[in-house]
């Protein structure tokens, strides 16, 4: 099989869609209320060091993905244990994203349709995408992202008459604590979730590109999320954090003249594409991990079954949307912290020590087993 390769631009676009996918509609940093936009900035700033670690790891091992690095750093058995941990995380994250989409369709879009149906549809599309490979995912991202950005900015521009800028005030009215809390939640969702892309970006072209991709992608996505958060706050005011899907509500307020109104479906388009890309990445990483773990020839052989399992898993994940929201706001940030920060730091330290100790081993040592 031909070596898969994606250009820096495509990788960056994948990363951006991965970031903005579900955060566009779920809203981020709700804890900080009308200061959520500061939380977004804070979240990006907090994410940068972690992201630099990911980029450093990737650039140390060109053409190796997360699981290879784990194997190399920790040896066979502990490496496999860590691999299992990340397989679980990507599987779980994929399920969460699918569930978000399911809840969205079930509460707002098509409430009478059983939730499993749109979830299964996303599963099928992701199966097709993952089977086609990261190249195709990259190309479709490159093609779609400009359209998404155009849609989002047009809608945001149209929202300007409905914006009340005094909703932003008082800045820092509630003190710093909520902002830091919000910043932390923005950090863990969506920015530090990019740890999973380490499982995919083995297909990058040069050594330098992980830095470029990660940093630029994070900054651009940060700006976009900032814009959306800004729009949501100025349109919705302090009730912003009360909605499950604030972007949807904010856009539903927008109208241009008498004719162009109720354009919230435009946001739904973004959401579907975002969820599709994000789930595809999660699915891809899960399958790659399992394939590495069980030493399969090609991850494609298990995609369908893993996708089905992911959909079923996400279906059983919560009983209600309240539970989902509670989980997303209260638990997720802490739950994801080890996967996003602690394990990568352990990995990073181990790798650095090993690399310092023997530069020569790097060439021969990588990927001897597996």
């Amino acid at each position, binding site marked *: 099989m031909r070596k898969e390769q994606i250009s820096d631009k495509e990788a960056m676009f994948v990363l951006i869609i991965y970031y903005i996918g579900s955060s566009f509609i779920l809203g981020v940093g709700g804890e900080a209320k009308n200061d959520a936009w500061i939380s977004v900035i804070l979240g990006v700033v907090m994410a940068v060091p972690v992201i630099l670690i990911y980029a450093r790891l990737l650039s140390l091992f060109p053409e190796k993905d997360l699981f290879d690095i784990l194997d190399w750093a920790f040896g066979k058995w502990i490496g496999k244990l860590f691999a299992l941990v990340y397989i679980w995380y990507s599987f779980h994250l994929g399920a969460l994203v699918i569930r978000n989409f399911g809840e969205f369709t079930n509460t707002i879009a098509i409430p009478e349709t059983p939730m499993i149906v749109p979830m299964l549809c996303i599963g099928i599309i992701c199966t097709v995408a993952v089977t086609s490979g990261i190249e195709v995912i990259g190309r479709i991202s490159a093609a779609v992202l400009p359209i998404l950005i155009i849609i989002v900015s047009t809608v945001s521009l149209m929202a300007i008459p409905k914006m009340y800028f005094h909703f932003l005030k008082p800045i820092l009215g509630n003190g710093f604590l909520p902002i830091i809390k919000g910043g932390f939640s923005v950090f863990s969702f969506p920015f530090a979730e990019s740890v999973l892309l380490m499982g995919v970006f083995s297909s990058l072209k040069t050594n330098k590109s992980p830095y470029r991709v990660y940093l630029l992608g994070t900054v651009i996505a940060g700006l976009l999320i900032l814009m959306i958060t800004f729009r949501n706050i100025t349109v919705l005011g302090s009730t912003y954090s009360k909605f499950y899907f604030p972007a949807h509500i904010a856009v539903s307020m927008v109208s241009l003249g008498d004719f162009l109104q109720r354009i919230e479906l435009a946001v739904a388009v973004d959401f579907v594409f975002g969820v599709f890309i994000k789930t595809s990445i999660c699915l891809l990483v899960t399958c790659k991990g399992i394939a590495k773990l069980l030493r399969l020839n090609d991850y494609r052989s*298990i995609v369908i079954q893993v996708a089905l399992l992911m959909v079923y898993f996400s279906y059983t*994940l919560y009983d209600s949307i309240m539970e989902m929201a509670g989980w997303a706001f209260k638990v997720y940030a802490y739950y994801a912290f080890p996967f996003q920060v602690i394990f990568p730091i352990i990995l990073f330290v181990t790798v650095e020590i090993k690399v310092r100790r023997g530069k020569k081993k790097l060439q021969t040592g990588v990927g001897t087993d597996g």
Partner: protein
Amino acid sequence: MIVLIIIGYSLLALFELIPFYHQKHWREFWVNAGFGFCSFTIAVLLSFDVNIPSPSEPIKNMVMFVIRKLV
């Protein structure tokens, strides 16, 4: 419902498993069969409205426990 699930999974088996069997990719065959069996079981259980325990509650408890310990 259950009929549809069975048809679906037999189709899947037909298009996924049988080729592996013919190509003698035993590892793939068994892994796939294992996953397939799991998902089939869950699908059947879901179709009978059996409540499958969700991991989110234990995770929540665990996270809360750890946080309380730390703080």
